[in-house]
């Protein structure tokens, strides 16, 4: 077995105070100056560290408050209160929720898995990936001494095309080179997000992270020059169709991507002829024709298919379908056609939490590409001011490449550990075997109807 893969993380502090869910309101007026003020008795000592960030006009105690409410409940004049923070509630959008964003910040800063006490606080289920649960194995599971123990769980996956069979020539030698597969140690590829104040330094940082993690970074071809010099093997140039014939792909590039187009066949052949060892990935927008397109690409010998959903995990054509469902149907279509094992399936769009990686793989992809998480790792608030030409409130454009790399490595490190947690619970020790393993998942639509479908009769009764 190859040596164990682990991601080394180091705390990479925020440059700005984070936005927290609720704030402390403490009035001075009416204070009777108790001998022992509740503020001095804070278990977490947050009032001891009180200072005001002059730049952001934010009180540090709001950031450090752990919400025990003891000061609120202890002040004899009831001068201290907690109140929901409207700025927090306004973070992001319905998909990139304040909760998701703040957890991504935490992971990018610390490299740790979010752990908390008490039971799950969220909704029963939700749309998209929130409508599935992963399974666990009650008795048997692979590791004997924890997920970081001796018997390890492999998260490595293969990118490329597997031949259905090999052919030998008259001399008994392989007819052609079948070795066009690259493996990456974890099923996560970085991808440049669609917006953000992204400059050369940010790109450098992201590519450094990709290299450190041993994975790849997908970049539009015009940004390739911003990457550090010796990083070609870690890049996936995303080539625009118009320039596919003229763009000179750097020699050491292993994978290049082109978007779907009706005339793609010619384009792909052209590139493949010019670069014999290059793998081509074709990006298809998730829409109602996605299955057909994927099937025809697979049949025509494309190595990698990248299914791209909108940034909120929905289909591109304003449909109501989710990435999760799209992946399942494409995967099944390819299985039915008997060619699923020959190609690599990737997905992107709305991958926002570590659990989405595991769930997307269960639904049928080999790996995912993450875009906005690597921007949110840099403290992005998804406010979209940059899309209107306004200044970035957290000055992402001033971040140094090494800080960017650390933050992203921390985030992916935390995700990797979470992937190990769920795979361990499922009793799966190889990410390759997780692919399409819907038997290790439970789906809301099926479970809910099976359980409650018969509990619908109401006739002449009162409900409580």
């Amino acid at each position, binding site marked *: 077995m190859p040596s164990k893969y682990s991601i080394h993380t180091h705390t990479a502090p925020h440059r700005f105070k984070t936005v927290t869910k609720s704030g402390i309101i403490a009035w001075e007026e009416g204070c009777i100056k108790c001998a022992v003020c509740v503020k001095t008795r804070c278990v977490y000592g947050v009032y001891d560290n009180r200072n005001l960030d002059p730049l952001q006009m934010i009180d540090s105690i709001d950031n450090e408050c752990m919400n025990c*409410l003891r000061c609120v409940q202890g002040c004899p004049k009831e001068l201290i209160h907690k109140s929901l923070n409207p700025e927090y509630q306004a973070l992001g959008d319905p998909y990139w929720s304040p909760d998701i964003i703040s957890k991504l910040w935490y992971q990018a800063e610390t490299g740790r*898995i979010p752990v908390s006490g008490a*039971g799950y*606080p969220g909704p029963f*289920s939700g749309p998209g990936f929130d409508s599935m649960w992963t*399974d666990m194995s009650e*008795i048997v*599971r692979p590791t004997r001494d924890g997920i970081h123990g001796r018997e390890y769980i492999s998260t490595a996956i293969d990118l490329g095309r597997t031949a259905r069979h090999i052919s030998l020539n008259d001399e008994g030698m392989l007819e052609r080179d079948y070795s066009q597969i690259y493996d990456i140690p974890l099923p996560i590829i970085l991808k440049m997000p669609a917006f953000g104040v992204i400059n050369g330094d940010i790109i450098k940082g992201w590519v450094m992270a990709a290299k450190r993690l041993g994975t790849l970074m997908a970049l539009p071809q015009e940004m390739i020059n911003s990457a550090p010099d010796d990083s070609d093997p870690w890049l996936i140039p995303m080539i625009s169709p118009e320039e596919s014939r003229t763009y000179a792909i750097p020699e050491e590039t292993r994978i290049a991507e082109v978007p779907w187009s009706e005339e793609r066949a010619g384009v792909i052949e052209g590139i493949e002829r010019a670069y014999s060892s290059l793998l081509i990935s074709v990006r298809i927008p998730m829409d109602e024709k996605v299955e057909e397109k994927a099937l025809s690409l697979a049949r025509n010998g494309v190595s990698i298919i990248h299914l791209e959903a909108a940034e909120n995990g929905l289909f591109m054509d304003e449909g109501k379908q989710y990435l999760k469902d799209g992946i399942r149907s494409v995967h099944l279509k390819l299985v039915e056609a008997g060619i699923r094992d020959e190609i690599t399936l990737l997905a992107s769009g709305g991958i926002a939490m570590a659990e989405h990686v595991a769930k997307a793989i269960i639904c049928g992809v080999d790996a995912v590409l993450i875009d906005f998480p690597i921007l949110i790792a840099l403290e992005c608030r998804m406010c979209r001011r940059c899309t209107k030409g306004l200044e970035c409130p957290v000055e992402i454009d001033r971040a140094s490449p090494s800080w960017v790399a650390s933050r992203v490595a921390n985030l992916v490190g935390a995700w990797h550990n979470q992937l190990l947690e769920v795979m361990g619970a499922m009793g799966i020790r190889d990410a390759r075997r997780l692919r399409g393993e819907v038997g290790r998942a439970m789906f809301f639509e099926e479970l809910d109807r099976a359980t409650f479908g018969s509990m619908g009769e109401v*006739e002449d009764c009162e409900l409580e």
Partner: protein
Amino acid sequence: MSSRNAFKLPEAVRTKSRFRNAIGKYRLNRTGDCIACGKCVEICPYGVHVMRRGRLVANHHLCVGADCPEPCHAACPVQALTLRRNPDFDAMGDFRWTPDLLASTWHMAEFSEMPPNHLEYKIGGSAGGFDKLRIKFPPVKKGDKSLLEADDDPDMGVELNRRGDNAHKIRIEVPFYGGGMSYGSVSITTMLSRIKAAATLGTFCCTGEGGYPDELKPYDDHVITQVATGLFGVREETIQRVKIVEFKYAQGAKPGLGGHLLGDKVTPGVARMREAVVGYPLFSPFPFHSVYSVEDHKKHVDWIKAMNPKALVSVKVSTPTDVDMVAVGSYYAGAHIIHLDGSYGGTGAAPDIAKKNIAMPIEYALPKVHRFLEEEGVRDKITVIASGGVRTPHDVAKTIALGADGVCTGTADLVALECIRCHNCESGRGCARGIATTDPELIKLMDLDWGTQRVINMFLAWRKELIRILKRLGMKSLKELVGRTDCLVHLDYMRKSRF
């Protein structure tokens, strides 16, 4: 029957919040214009206003807001009072334990009564499972109160030994017992409060995996001792001391994951109890490495029976897809109780990804297990206990209608002790409110008698509400409700029948 008559329930005693300012949904702001005339004290039906040394103070948490028939703010002769929603109220809680549910539970723990209607005390805000299920009552004819006024209270007891073997015949007087919370994860005061309350209520409480502190000895007959994968604190002597032994195979909140007690929490007391070294982290592995099949599991059960032949054996498992097979396997291995812990249950600390995603909510697992045990013809030979997100007496009724004989509680007990769901049980010195901590200073925040009475009050209120529900359903005993899914309706599937 005789034991039933012999049992006497404890008294409810009003037990106020241990913090100076209890949190309620509303606040009454009083301006300096107040002339302390006492009008508000006189008219408030809920005792919100109190005159103290010539000045007026308010117990805001008793205010019912807009529901009040005689609002003080309208009656105040100098308009010194204004009614506001309390911002603190909305800053606490979450989807499962809404601010309303927290405040309702605090009300029950204080008064031993269901709260007034300004609090939504029947459901939480998770928009699924229990929160979308409603209990279906037959219509009451106008003026007919016979159902509710029936003299005999329905029988609320649950028999725990249905195998008919030589082990103890145990009946619990209320359909719930305390789920495992270890010494180390909660304070000794919390542990004792729960166990003392359980003893007076005629039921049990589990030690969790962390040893069996000597302070528990007087309550041996009401203690369930847990044997979990780390085998912390398990000794022949502790097994022999109790009437019920629980094997914990997995925990709903973190199924398939081992437990991990951080080094900071391994204080001298905890270390002694667990026979470990102070300051070193402790791992409970997953799974039991001596159990890889039902046959291995039987060996475990036999081991307990050899040490304590009269003990009942409970098997606590979480809820994977094949939970029904696991339940049947447990029965054949000789278990008396199968305890299903659903995925939305509590924990002292667990990765968020596990709490949210791994295994299924109890609402799905329970009917599946109930049905499968029935098909196997062994449903009446084993006691099914469910846990994992049971917050209210309504959740208890729904759980039983979905197929359980009784439930296990955990978080609700802590909320009665004024847990506020800040989710920081695991960080630093532990719970800042002195519930889930072993910090010598923080432990002092709570008094044992106070804690015991709060838990008793809450459970008496639960029992009373369950009795009301059963009477309203026209049932004479809780047993009649088991598996009666026809008494439930799920709002997403609701339809009028065609005839």
